[in-house]
C-alpha cells in the first residue's frame, strides 16, 4: 500500500469529522446538538488546510497512489477546494435552518459531510470503480437529505422522486460502464483511453459512452434528464437544495470532466455532439421554463438547469477541435464556471433562505419591496442574481466569458452556432433574474409583510457569514478574476496542464 497521507489528508479529516459528529450526536443532549454543526464546520475548515499545504507546500505536483487509482494533482485540488468551500458555506447556511425546526441535526451534518467526502473521492478517482463509488457516496446521503423535512409531503415527494430517478440513472450509468469496461478490458481511465481510440467505430462503445454520459447528465440536470430537479429542489430543505445545485452538480461535472478528458479524449466524436445537444437543450429549455416560475426556489432550479447547460458548452468546444490547447482551455473553462457558479448560486440560495425566513414564503411575489425592510438582503440578492445573469462586474461575467472564449476558439460552424445559442440564452436568462430584482426593489411591499419581517429579527451569524463570503467572492472575482487572493492563479495553470 503506497498511501500518501499528506495527499489523503483532506479526505481523512472529513472522514474523521464524520466520526466525530457521529459520536457527538450520540453523546450530546438535545439542546447541545448544535455542537455537531460546529464540529462539521470546523472539520471542513481544517480539511482546507492540507489543501493549501498541498497546493503551495512543495508546489502542485502530481501525487499518485494505489497504483494510479487515486491521484492528487492540480485538477483535483482545485475541485476539492470547491467542494470543501462550497460544503462549508452550505453547512453555515444549514445551521439556523436545521436548528429552527425539529430536524435531526447530528444525522444531518453526518450525511452532508459524507456527501462532501464522496465528492472529494470523485475528484481524485482515476478509474471507473472509484468514480462510481464516489458518486454513490455523494448521492446516497442526498436521497435521504432531500426528504429531511419528514413531516412535509413535498419533502417526501422530493426525496422519492430523486431517489427513483437517481437509481435509474445509476443503473444506466452502470450499464454503460459495464460496456466501457467490457469493450476496453480496463477500468482505469488510462486503460480506457488507450483502448478506446480503436473502438471509435464500434456502436457498442458509443452506447457505453453515451449511457455513461447520461448517468452524469442526471447529476448535472441536463435536459432531458432534469425532470427530478425542480420538484426535488422545491421540496427538499433549502440548504440541501443549495448543496444539490452546487456540490452535487459540481460532482457530476467532475465525473464528466474525468470521463471526457481523462478517459475518452480520443473519442471526442462520440461525446462531443451529444453534449452539444444536451448543452443547447439545457440552456434553452431551462431558461424558457424558468421564465414562468413564481416560486423562487423552483426558478433557481430551472436556472440551475440552464447554468448546467452553459457549463456543458465547453465540452462541445473541446470536441470540436483536436488542438490540445483548445481542449485544455475548454476544461479550464468548465472548472472556472463551476467555481464561480458555486459561489454565486450558493449566495443566491443563502438569500433565498434568509428571504424565506424574513417573509415566510418562497413565492417571488411575496418578496415585493424587500429592500424597504431588508435592504442588505435585497442588495445581496440583486448581486447574486445578476451575477448569475452574467452582468459585469460581478463574477458571473467571467464564467460566461470563459465559456464563450472556449466555444469560439475552435471556430467551426457547429461550435459557433452553439455560441450564438448561448448568447441568446444569456439574454433570456436576464429576464427572470431581473424579475426577482425587480420584485425586491421596485414593487410595493404587500400588506402585512413588514410586520412579519420585524417579527423574525435579524439574520443568524452563520448565514451572514456564508452570504458575506459569497458576496466578497462574487465582487472580487468579478473585478479581478483569477487574481482573487492570488491563490488560484497557479492552480489554474495546473488545471490547464494537468489534463
Amino acid at each position, binding site marked *: 500500500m503506497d498511501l500518501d497521507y499528506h495527499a489523503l489528508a483532506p479526505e481523512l479529516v472529513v472522514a474523521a469529522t464524520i466520526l466525530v459528529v457521529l459520536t457527538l450526536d450520540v453523546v450530546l443532549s438535545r439542546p447541545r446538538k448544535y455542537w455537531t454543526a460546529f464540529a462539521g464546520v470546523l472539520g471542513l475548515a481544517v480539511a482546507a488546510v492540507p489543501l493549501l499545504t498541498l497546493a503551495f507546500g512543495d508546489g502542485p505536483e502530481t501525487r499518485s497512489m494505489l497504483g494510479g487509482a487515486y491521484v492528487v494533482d492540480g485538477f483535483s485540488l482545485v475541485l476539492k477546494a470547491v467542494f470543501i468551500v462550497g460544503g462549508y458555506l452550505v453547512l453555515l447556511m444549514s445551521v439556523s435552518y436545521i436548528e429552527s425546526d425539529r430536524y435531526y441535526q447530528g444525522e444531518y451534518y453526518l450525511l452532508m459531510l459524507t456527501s462532501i467526502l464522496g465528492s472529494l473521492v470523485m475528484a481524485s478517482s482515476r478509474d471507473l470503480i472509484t468514480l462510481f463509488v464516489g458518486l454513490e457516496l455523494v448521492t446516497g446521503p442526498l436521497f435521504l437529505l432531500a426528504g429531511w423535512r419528514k413531516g412535509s409531503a413535498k419533502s*417526501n415527494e422530493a*426525496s422519492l422522486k430523486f431517489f427513483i430517478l437517481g437509481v435509474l440513472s445509476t*443503473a444506466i450509468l452502470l450499464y454503460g460502464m459495464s460496456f466501457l469496461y467490457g469493450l476496453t478490458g480496463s477500468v482505469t481511465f488510462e486503460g480506457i483511453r488507450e483502448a478506446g481510440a480503436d473502438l471509435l467505430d464500434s456502436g457498442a462503445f458509443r452506447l457505453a459512452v453515451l449511457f455513461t454520459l447520461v448517468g452524469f447528465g442526471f447529476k448535472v440536470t441536463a435536459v432531458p434528464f432534469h425532470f427530478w430537479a425542480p420538484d426535488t429542489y422545491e421540496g427538499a430543505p433549502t440548504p440541501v437544495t443549495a448543496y444539490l445545485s452546487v456540490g452535487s452538480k459540481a460532482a457530476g461535472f467532475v465525473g464528466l470532466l474525468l470521463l471526457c478528458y481523462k478517459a475518452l479524449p480520443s473519442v471526442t466524436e462520440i461525446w462531443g455532439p451529444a453534449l452539444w445537444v444536451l448543452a443547447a437543450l439545457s440552456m434553452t429549455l431551462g431558461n424558457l421554463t424558468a421564465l414562468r416560475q413564481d416560486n423562487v426556489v423552483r426558478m433557481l432550479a430551472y436556472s440551475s438547469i440552464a447554468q448546467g447547460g452553459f457549463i456543458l458548452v465547453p465540452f462541445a468546444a473541446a470536441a470540436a477541435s483536436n488542438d490540445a490547447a483548445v481542449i485544455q482551455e475548454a476544461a479550464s473553462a468548465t472548472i472556472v464556471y463551476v467555481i464561480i457558479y458555486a459561489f454565486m448560486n450558493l449566495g443566491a440560495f443563502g438569500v433565498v433562505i434568509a428571504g424565506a425566513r424574513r417573509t415566510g414564503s418562497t413565492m417571488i411575489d411575496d418578496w415585493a419591496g424587500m429592500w424597504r425592510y431588508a435592504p442588505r438582503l435585497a442588495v445581496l440578492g440583486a448581486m447574486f442574481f445578476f451575477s448569475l445573469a452574467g452582468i459585469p462586474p460581478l463574477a458571473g461575467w467571467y464564467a460566461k466569458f470563459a465559456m464563450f472564449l472556449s466555444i469560439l476558439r475552435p471556430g467551426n460552424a457547429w461550435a459557433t452556432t452553439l455560441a450564438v445559442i448561448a448568447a441568446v440564452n444569456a439574454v433570456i436568462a436576464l429576464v427572470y433574474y431581473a424579475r426577482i430584482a425587480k420584485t425586491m426593489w421596485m414593487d410595493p411591499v404587500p400588506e402585512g409583510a413588514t410586520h412579519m419581517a420585524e417579527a423574525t429579527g435579524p439574520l443568524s451569524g452563520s448565514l451572514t457569514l456564508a452570504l458575506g463570503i459569497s458576496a466578497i467572492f462574487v465582487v472580487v472575482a468579478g473585478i479581478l478574476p483569477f487574481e482573487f487572493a492570488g491563490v488560484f492563479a497557479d492552480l489554474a495553470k495546473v488545471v490547464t496542464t494537468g489534463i
Partner: protein
Amino acid sequence: MVLTQFLILGALLFSIGVYGLLSRRNAVTVLLAVELMLAAVNINLIAFEAFWNTAAAHGQIFAIFVITIAAAEVGIGLAIILMVFRNRASGNIDELDLMRW
C-alpha cells in the same frame, strides 16, 4: 459459450427492468425493477471479466461493489418509502403530484 449470449441476456434483463421501472405503480415494485437492471449490469461485468480473463479480476470486484451499493440503495429506498408511507398511508408513487405545476 460465447460472450454474446451473456450480453444479450443482460440486455434482455435490463430492458425488462426498464419496463418494470416505467410501468409499475408501487414504489417497492419499482425498486425491484431497478434490481433487475443492476443484475443485468452484473451479468455484463462478469461476462466481460470472463472474456478478458485477466488476473486482476476488475470485473468481479466491480460487480461486488455494485452489489454492495445496490444493497445500500435498497436500504435508502425502503427508508424513503417507509417515510412516505407514514405520511400518506400509500405506497403508490403516482399519487405524488403535489408539485405538478
